[in-house]
């Protein structure tokens, strides 16, 4: 199964093409071809998932899938499936399938569905490209494509708030892109290469120019990763429809930024170089501040999705913090959170969407008694919330434990204090929601209740969060199994440290 087939170099392209082709066909479909569009969407998502699974299997057995051609003299377009890219590609393909199913239910009977699903697929194609990009240039292409394909999703509803949020989003991310481009050009001038390689491509001793390039690259990527003080667009962008928020917070935009920072640190500068040049500790400090800042701001939000948005700002910085610990355990902790945070946060956004669509509930203080009314959704929410807090044996605990040990290994005990403080704050803003769901009686009617037959809500909306919540439990309880996020992160780090 893992022999060198002639097909192998084409697998990354095919994985990319599934969503790209789906996007183009869907754009051309008439609005009312509901069944065909759904079939196309789901078919493409399943096809992509299968391709990614095949590649994961191959990469596990030491294969590399690579395809490149020269675009400009000295600048290559390169797609490559290595262990790190499979992590992000795997996350995006699994969650694309679930989010597509969810979006089908969510947008039932609403206008402009072809436009929506077209850009939705394009957005997923961009994340796949980001995952599979074999050098910084290719990464940048897909990174900008992601910006452009998400904008129509953010403003999908077309309301004044949505347009305002979209404007803010586009200003932030395009400026970030410009800074990234500047950093990239300077990097090319300085080193003559834009390749990604395990252990980094930067050689020699640290220079001020390299430091400046690092700052530019991280600042450019930090906009999407919602690193303080570049986070302003994210809480506004939650006006987008729930499936968009779910994808935005779990895989697409925020993760693309974090993934980019991981790539830059580990495969461009190299952890050893970056750490010796003293670049990582300041970034770790910034990430730690963002973690606490996001949690504190989340505490004061009364809108459910806004609270989740600030929670994302906090949680995504765990990934950056982990990489900045500059040791194998810390890196495992950061990488594993790339997947864990995605699965937990998408569950929470799915659930928030379910409360909004089924009960008309948007605010946390309207959630009283939602547990008995929507038990499956609320169980999923509860599991994901406890996962975020880092309660064992759920996914978040594995992250927190690995990161904590990584911090102690790197002799940075203050990081453990930050992790504990963040857990306390997470408990402080998630537990009151759980309490309202299950223990507060419902006294008055729901704001806008919709009945969907036998189930508590539409099946399309119900199953995705139930599955992801089950995954939150499974990837925690069975963290030591092969192909679990933890095992895969260990594989990535092993290959990084012993290339």
């Amino acid at each position: 199964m893992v022999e060198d087939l002639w097909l192998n170099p084409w697998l990354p392209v095919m994985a990319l093409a599934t969503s790209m082709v789906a996007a183009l066909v869907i754009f051309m479909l008439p609005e009312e071809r509901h069944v065909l569009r759904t079939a196309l969407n789901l078919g493409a998502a399943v096809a992509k998932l299968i391709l990614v699974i095949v590649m994961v299997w191959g990469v596990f057995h030491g294969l590399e899938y690579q395809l490149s051609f020269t675009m400009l003299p000295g600048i290559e377009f390169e797609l490559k499936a290595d262990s790190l890219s499979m992590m992000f590609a795997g996350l995006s393909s699994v969650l694309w399938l679930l989010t597509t199913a969810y979006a089908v239910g969510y947008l039932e009977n609403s206008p402009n569905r072809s436009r929506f699903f077209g850009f939705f697929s394009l957005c997923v194609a961009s994340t796949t490209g980001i995952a599979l990009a074999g050098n910084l240039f290719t990464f940048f292409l897909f990174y900008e494509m992601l910006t452009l394909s998400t904008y129509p999703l953010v403003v999908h509803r077309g309301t004044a708030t949505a347009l305002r949020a979209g404007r803010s989003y586009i200003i932030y991310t395009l400026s970030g892109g410009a800074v990234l481009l500047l950093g990239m050009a300077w990097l090319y001038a300085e080193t003559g290469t834009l390749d990604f390689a395990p252990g980094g491509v930067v050689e020699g001793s640290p220079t001020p120019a390299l430091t400046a390039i690092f700052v530019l690259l991280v600042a450019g990527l930090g906009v999407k990763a919602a690193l303080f003080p570049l986070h302003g667009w994210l809480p506004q962008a939650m006006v987008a429809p729930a499936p968009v928020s779910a994808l935005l917070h779990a895989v697409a935009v925020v993760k693309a930024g974090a993934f980019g920072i991981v790539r830059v640190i580990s495969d461009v500068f190299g952890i050893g170089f970056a750490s010796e040049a003293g670049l990582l500790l300041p970034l770790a400090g910034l990430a730690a501040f963002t973690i606490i800042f996001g949690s504190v701001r989340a505490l004061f939000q009364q809108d459910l999705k806004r609270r989740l948005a600030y929670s994302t700002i906090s949680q995504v910085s765990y990934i950056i913090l982990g990489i900045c610990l500059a040791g194998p355990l810390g890196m495992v902790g950061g990488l594993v959170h790339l997947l864990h945070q995605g699965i937990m946060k998408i569950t929470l956004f799915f659930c928030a969407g379910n409360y909004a669509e089924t009960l008309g509930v948007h605010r946390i203080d309207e959630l009283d008694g939602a547990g008995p009314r929507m038990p499956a959704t609320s169980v999923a929410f509860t599991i994901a919330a406890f996962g975020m807090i880092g309660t064992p044996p759920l996914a978040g605990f594995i992250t927190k434990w690995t990161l904590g040990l990584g911090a102690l290994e790197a002799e940075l005990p203050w990081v453990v204090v930050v992790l504990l403080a963040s857990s306390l704050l997470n408990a402080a803003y998630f537990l009151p929601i759980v309490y309202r769901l299950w223990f507060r009686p419902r006294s008055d009617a729901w704001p806008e209740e919709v009945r969907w037959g036998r189930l508590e809500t539409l099946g399309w909306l119900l199953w995705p969060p139930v599955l992801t919540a089950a995954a939150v439990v499974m990837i925690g309880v069975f963290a030591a199994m092969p192909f679990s996020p933890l095992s895969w992160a260990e594989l990535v780090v092993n290959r990084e440290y012993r290339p």
Partner: protein
Amino acid sequence: MMPALPFLAIAAVGLPLLWLLTLPLAGRWHRFGLPLLPVPALLLALVSTSGWQWSLPWLLMDSQWLLDDLRRTFLTLTAVLWSTAGVFALGYLDNRNLKRFLVFWCLTLTGNLGLVIAGDAASFYSFFALMTFASYGLVVHEGTDEAFRAGRVYMAMAVVGEMLLLAGLMLAAEEADSLLLTELADAVVTAPQAQLIIGLLITGFGVKAGLPLLHFWLPLAHPVAPTPASAVLSGAMIKAGLLGWVLTLPLGLATPGDWGDLMVVAGAAASLGGALAGVCQRKTKAVLAYSSISQMGLMMLLVGAALATPDRAAVIVPIIGLYALHHGLAKGALFLSTAVHPPAAGPVRWAYWLLLALPGFSLAGLPWTSGALAKLAMKEALASDHLTMVTATWLSPLMTAGAVATLLLILRFLWLHHKQAEPAANPPWRTAGWLLTVAGSGLVFWVLPWQAGELVEQPYWLPKAYQYPALLAPIGLALTAGFLAALLVRRAPAVPPGDLLALWPARRPASGTVRAQPAPAGRALQRWSDKVSALSVGADTRLRSGGLLALAILVLLVTLINQVS
């Protein structure tokens, strides 16, 4: 090693979860499975051999489950009490929110059973956390304002405890480069931050075990829960903190610092302070909750002595298990009896009061009960000539004082129950559950199939002649004091449950909403000054009678007994 044991272990933690999953399909018969859920765990405790280990490399981060004499004792306690409390629950619960209650019951049970057999930090902490968070649902089940206040205090302290624990476990695991609990304990001693780790572990588990100053939630939360839940909270779950101490602290190894002596002081404060706050209670269940704090204080003495005297740890640790088993079942029986109505008249009435009082007197060390054995074993283990610690000479008088205090509490409990309980008929399951627990408290102790420590002589259930005074003197003293108190004191001073928590100004009512916006700085300042004034005024009125009096008597009693002996 028996090949079936892994299956039994999986069944022990899996059966409650499986039963939980079938809840949506449940008919009326389904709830009768409740008492059977801990049965695989009980079987596991009985048929396994000490030293049984099972590695589960696929679970969490490479787990290991194991059983030794200590864990088998704790597992027996946990399984028996949850089972008999389950019988009781059949005759206690009504249909209001029944499913919700059963969900939390099963989750808590899984956690409580699992943590006993866990041999590595990750699975231990997982089960511990499951128990901690799920038992919130048991505490607040009645849905009263009082229950939600108790739940809030409980949750706040539990979360803080979890964080302390996590920090301690992480530091230890980093030092040990392993997750196995035995290796953690070994590594703690040589760690540069040994003091910090030990402090974190003691306080982290102390929240659950009722360590003084971390105990406030306990007299609030244990009484407000439905009675069968109170029984397992105060009988079985409270022991999880104790077990955590024994498993993670470096007992038997030379430990830096004076943590052993500190724990002895804390244990003394809990044992006497808890008793004195307890006699000032107005509700039977609150009296019993304080009695639990007081009894846990005695177990803290043991842990402290084992920590301070490494070469005695091997002797003391089995006694801790015995004491936990004895106290858990007796306290469970007492909690259940608060909801059993006395018969109107006749010899049944006499039998009722006899069975009601028996576990209580057992706690005080009445000869021929489990308490007598536990007390004697403890006394011998803590004999001062074996111990080198600073507080060694205080241990014996502290134990005597503790026994007196215990019986005073029991007398207070009996008095209150006598005044408050109305004669009525009991649902049969309720009576059965209570009787089973009383029987368990009286019998389980004697049929343990394994050696529970080398101090226990055969036939150990008959104290030797010279031991009777040691057992009977505190009982006589307490009876006299109780009688005098009944003559002289018309009304005991009242201490609010949660004692020192009364210093904390009253919070917003349960129906209030979470604050929407951060208050401006000016308002925050105003609130702080309000708090400070409320603190001085409220503290004075609420604690004037109870707290200070209790403190004075405590000091007096210990000094007196130390002089006498």
